[in-house]
């Protein structure tokens, strides 16, 4: 496992934008797009510390998936990034006979991600969505974008992240976003409850291998929304739970609902400073910790919604937004496609 303390110091921050009308927004020139992916294919983006590891991962994939396409993730030579892991992507669908009993394809894909990331040393699946792709690495944001030729992609939701690594190592696998299926998380802050969030997720079969706190947010949303069936707002209210004094002041139904939410999902509470952007198939969500110890600003212009750590980041790409606001602590900004 290669997680030497590579550090490129830049500021901490995140930015996201979404077109509510699902207009494709270019990362730059349109050459290639994520439309390679169709609704039944999952795209695994995998990084290999050691190219040799590739074969054991591919053996595993071949045994379990129909592989439609294999390729290296296109990159451009960038002077500041002389070395990188081997970066591959696979467009796959689970073999029907592997889906035993009631197992859904999504569950099968999650199992594969957990298995590869925890059992095959030096290989990391860092993107496993149908409709979502993640690109990440160690370097300055502009260099990473150039390296992955981000300007050649287009999508209706973009999130981005830059980091000044402090408490956990900066390494290729540990860069943001953290993704699973179509969940993609970028996060600024520190989750001080990580220890119990991790142990709680482990009880449900998640394996936390990426040495960083953000991973828990991704898996927690997968657990609460996809597996437990909570809607996005309720899931966000488990992650950044209202205070008891506010719950006690609600009407009886509200008190009952939120008391139970905290009783049952206490271990899912993300405690500590954070702002999180959470992209998924149906939209984009921004959320702060319950006492807003990290900044988060939102803005709208036409059908576009922007969210970022700082207003200046939004104004850099949208100089005249129609509306700019600071979401309140723990109150999610939920944007869905029209």
């Amino acid at each position, binding site marked *: 496992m290669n997680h030497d303390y590579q550090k490129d110091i830049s500021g901490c921050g995140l930015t996201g934008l979404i077109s509510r009308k699902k207009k494709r927004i270019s990362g730059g020139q349109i050459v290639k797009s994520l439309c390679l992916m169709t609704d039944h294919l999952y795209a695994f983006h995998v990084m290999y510390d050691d190219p040799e590891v590739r074969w054991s991962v591919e053996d595993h994939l071949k045994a379990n998936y129909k592989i439609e396409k294999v390729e290296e993730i296109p990159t451009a030579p960038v002077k500041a990034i002389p070395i990188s892991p081997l970066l591959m992507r696979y467009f796959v669908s689970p073999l029907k006979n592997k889906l035993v009993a009631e197992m859904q394809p999504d569950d099968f894909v999650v199992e594969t991600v957990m298995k590869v990331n925890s059992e095959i040393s030096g290989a990391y699946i860092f993107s496993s969505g149908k409709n979502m792709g993640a690109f990440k690495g160690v370097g300055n944001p502009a260099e990473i974008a150039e390296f992955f030729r981000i300007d050649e992609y287009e999508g209706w939701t973009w999130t981005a992240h830059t980091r000044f690594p402090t408490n956990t190592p900066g390494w290729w696998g540990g860069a943001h976003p953290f993704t699973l299926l179509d969940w993609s998380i970028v996060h600024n802050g520190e989750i001080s409850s990580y220890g119990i969030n991790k142990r709680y997720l482990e009880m449900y079969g998640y394996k936390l291998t990426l040495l960083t706190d953000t991973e828990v947010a991704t898996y927690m949303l997968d657990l609460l929304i996809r597996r437990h069936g909570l809607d996005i707002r309720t899931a966000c209210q488990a992650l950044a739970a209202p205070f008891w004094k506010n719950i006690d002041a609600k009407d009886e*139904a509200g008190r009952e609902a939120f008391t*139970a939410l905290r009783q049952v999902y206490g271990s899912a509470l993300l405690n500590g400073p954070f702002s999180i952007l959470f992209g998924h198939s149906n939209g984009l969500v921004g959320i702060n910790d319950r006492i807003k110890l990290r900044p988060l600003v939102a803005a709208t212009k036409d059908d576009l919604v922007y969210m970022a750590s700082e207003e200046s980041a939004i104004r850099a790409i949208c100089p005249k937004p129609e509306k700019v606001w600071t979401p309140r602590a723990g109150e999610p900004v939920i944007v869905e496609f029209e």
Partner: protein
Amino acid sequence: MFRSLALPEYLATIDPVKCIRCKRCIQNCGWGVYSWGGDKVLINTSKCVNCLRCYHYCPEEAIEIRPNHTRYKPNACWGYNAIRNIKRQAETGGIPLTGMGSDLPYPILFDNLLIDACQVTNPSIDPLREPMELRTYLGKKPSKLEFVRGADGKPVLKTKMPPQIKLSLPLLFSPMSYGSISLNAQKVLAQAAHECGTVMNTGEGGLHEDLLPYRSNIIVQVASGRFGVNPDYLNAGVAVEIKIGQGAKPGIGGHLPGEKIPLDVARARMIPVGTDAISPAPQHDIYSIEDLRQLIYAIKETTGYKPVSVKIAAVHNVAAIASGIVRAGADIVYLDGFRGGTGAAPSIIRDHLGIPIEHAIAAVDDRLRQEGIRNEASIIAAGGIRSSADAAKAIALGADAVAIATAALITMGCTTCGKCYTGCCSWGITTQKPELTARLDPEIFAERLINLVHAWEHELKEILGALGINAIESLRGNRERLRGVGLDTQTLDILGVKPAGR
């Protein structure tokens, strides 16, 4: 006259110059150390237990209780206690009894654990300026919830929640029966529990009617003796606890000597006055986990499904036992470490059986998580919780709440002298003698216990604030925020804690 060859432990001394012959020491000593000799106070120091009642009530500060420095010949193998115990046993042929938790110098792992704090990147939180939440619910939790959207778009709970015990902070009072402690001591616990938003536990001695006003702050206990158990009793509190074992005496039953059973205790226990109340070692209807399940559900049927707690002593195989208890339907597993206190236990049992609570919490929490049933029951940890720091560490290891008894008794004057089984407690705590129990004014001492609970509450909030978290559930099981010092690799592995520096 028979004179024991076991050396007296303490030397009670009175400065004859300072002494004004007021005889308060004679009046205050429950053990009869002092008597009046016509012109001065006579001292029978072999009866002294160092409870310091006389010291505190001497108006002239004339009394000093010193350790007896007279010792047997130093011997690294045959220590003082080893020789003294043999002499006592040779004289009596009995099993030496003791009270309180073990005082032997076993390692206390809480003292080898340090708590994290925030610096720079994750801001600490000031509990005086920001909300800091300690509220704790004990009971079975479903693994997931279902909501429907109401007409106004707000979530409405569809899942039926099992009953929960609501605590203002993750701390409750351990079971201590009426009989082992005085009614006044129980009243102190009940009043403080009521005031602090927590619960006390009747122990196995039944329920005195004076405690009925506090029923929403009471857990009633069913132990092997079934003293005072009837449907009204089972329904009197917020929950029922089945006592399988006690940390200080795993594998043996309770023992209340007849001297501590006057009429009122006898009535609460539903036994004759002055008879020894000996609880059987096992519950005679529990010889398997299936039997336990039957009792749990019999109690639930009787109480309209109030939460049922099962209390066990922390023993070697505690993780597997706890898992069985959870699967048998318990809502709460109460773990009592071997350092836990007792009103009366053979010292050989107290000092040599069981395992520490720290290991037990870690092992049980791990096991329940591995089996995916941690949500099925809350864990109460007890047995040697001396401070809010111990409480925080126990919770970080995986407990939902801690229970205290010795600490609560200390607020009533207890000095942990360990002679609870004699029924002579000069502080009026572990005695039924009316002249002694009258010393413990429930109103006054409830205030002190309330002070203690509030002080720990503030300290816990400070600890959470330093950790940069504002709800107790983010500390619970969060072993990432603990580090071990001076612990071997295997112990660290069992505790699931990294060494300091990592």
